[in-house]
């Protein structure tokens, strides 16, 4: 049973990652920076619980805030450019964050071992869950609490004026601007909300794996983040969830018996899927 709980934890965290890219994608922007916000959230929460001794819940709040703040700060310069230029800018930012944590040392001694992030070695012993005696099932429920909250929030956005504004910008920037929508405000706000969601996801990720390092936030993770909503389609949040389950539960766990060849298949399947369904499984309904 623990295996399935563990799988559900992975699906939950990746859903948060996918949702953070989903809201940015609604405004028509492809951001490969989500792995960077994810990393910021992971290190923030990890350092607060391990080094400062905080409880996890306020630490996750801090992750959300730091993810949002960084996303907002990146959003302003990066969103001056759009389309493919933004892809490049965010990709470079994500790699920049990874390289930052590759060079980031901040260790303090606790007892006879040193804890804290140590550059390329990573950040070990984020042991909040085991120290407080949480079982795998409880951890899973805790993670899914945040997933459900994020999905509900985005679901509500989709039904509110704000959601319509987001989609209007995504459909046609010029038209949206001509009816008085402030493009920069909309895009930066979407980026900020995405950053907060990714930050929480990262904080949860750091705590269930107990060990994070810079390679956990590489270009592959950034690709995953945008791949979920693109593969799942932009009709609603469930497309993203569906895509996460398809990728994580079926492609990654289900094909484990293929061994090394699984990774080969993964890239090839993306290429194939995009050739067959260029607009995703659940493509956004286009109103003429």
């Amino acid at each position, binding site marked *: 049973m623990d295996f399935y709980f563990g799988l559900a934890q992975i699906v939950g965290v990746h859903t948060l990652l996918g949702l953070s890219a989903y809201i940015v994608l609604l405004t028509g922007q492809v951001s490969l920076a989500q792995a960077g916000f994810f990393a910021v959230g992971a290190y923030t929460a990890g350092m607060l619980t391990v080094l400062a001794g905080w409880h996890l819940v306020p630490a996750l709040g801090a992750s959300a805030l730091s993810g949002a703040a960084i996303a907002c700060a990146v959003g302003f310069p*990066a969103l001056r450019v759009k*389309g493919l230029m933004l*892809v*490049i800018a965010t990709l*470079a930012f994500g790699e920049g964050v990874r390289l930052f944590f590759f*060079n980031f040392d901040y260790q303090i001694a606790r007892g006879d071992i040193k804890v804290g992030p140590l550059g390329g070695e990573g950040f070990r012993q984020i042991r909040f869950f085991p120290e407080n005696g949480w079982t795998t099932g409880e951890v899973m429920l805790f993670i899914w609490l945040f997933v459900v909250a994020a999905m509900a929030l985005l679901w509500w956005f989709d039904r509110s004026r704000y959601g319509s504004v987001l989609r209007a910008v995504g459909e046609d920037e010029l038209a949206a601007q001509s009816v008085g929508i402030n493009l920069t405000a909309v895009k930066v706000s979407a980026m900020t909300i995405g950053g907060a969601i990714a930050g929480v996801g990262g904080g949860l990720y750091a705590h269930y794996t107990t060990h994070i390092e810079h390679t956990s936030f590489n270009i592959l993770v950034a690709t995953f983040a945008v791949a979920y909503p693109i593969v799942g389609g932009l009709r609603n949040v469930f497309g993203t969830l569906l895509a996460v389950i398809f990728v994580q539960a079926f492609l990654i766990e289900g094909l484990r018996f293929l061994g090394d060849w699984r990774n080969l298949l993964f890239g090839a399947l993306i290429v194939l899927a*995009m050739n067959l369904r260029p607009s995703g499984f659940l493509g956004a309904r286009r109103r003429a």
Partner: protein
Amino acid sequence: MLDFLQAVSDGVLFGATYALIGIGFTLVFGVMHKINMAYAAASVGGAYCGLLVLKVMGSAPPALVFLGAFAAGGLLGWIVYVACFHFIPLSSPLATLMSTVGMLLLIDEVIVHVTEGVPLTYPAAFDDVMLRMGEFTMRGDLLLVFGVAVLCMAALLLLLYRTKLGLATRAVSQQPVAARLCGIRLERVNATTFIITGLLGGIAGALIGASVGALSPLLTTPLTVKGLIVTVIGGLGSIPGAIVAGLLVGGFESVLQMYRGVTERDLYVMLLLFVFLVFRPGGIFAAKGGRD
């Protein structure tokens, strides 16, 4: 001061390879208004294929290995075109972005799988030659890298501005519909562009392998990011921009490597990109009339 000049000259010489990679990205962007994310991976893949020459013939002069990488790069470019662009409608930009990222992962994994993740040594040429001017030196292999890269760029510019094929390519990049009305076959021009950029990429990959001394699958991600940064700094779609930006990034990273060490150097290259995004988002040679 001398150290500084030395770092700049080494970096600029090596930067020629970044310029080649940047040209590949920018050329495809100019013609199709798409980004081929798999380009740097395909270039490294081409360089790996060049090593097959050594495997088949036992021992071969480095020039033959380079030639193998050149040809394999072209072939890989064509494969990327067919797999990621040919069948996907031009109207879905997200789909080609994802398909090329998929291709990037696929090429990466194939390399890891075939070489078992172990870096392979790459044959170098002129690595024992050293130009000296007092304390100031220039490495022979870096000079070769620079020379070959300049030759490739000259050949490319000749091709683009002096041949019918180049005329067709430029026509498609300016006005695809009008070009088609003049009887230019869009698909063929697109495929040719991919083959040409692939050839350039194969050479670039081989030059990088030769000057570093080894090839590793770990090269693909930084090369992709740096190639894209070069493209943005130079201005998307501008070939002279890519050349200047490539040399600039090469020199810049070499200087920072001297002052801040190899692990931090790439961080500053990203910062350089953001400086450009804030103060000059169109790049050094911004195209007229804010194209996306």
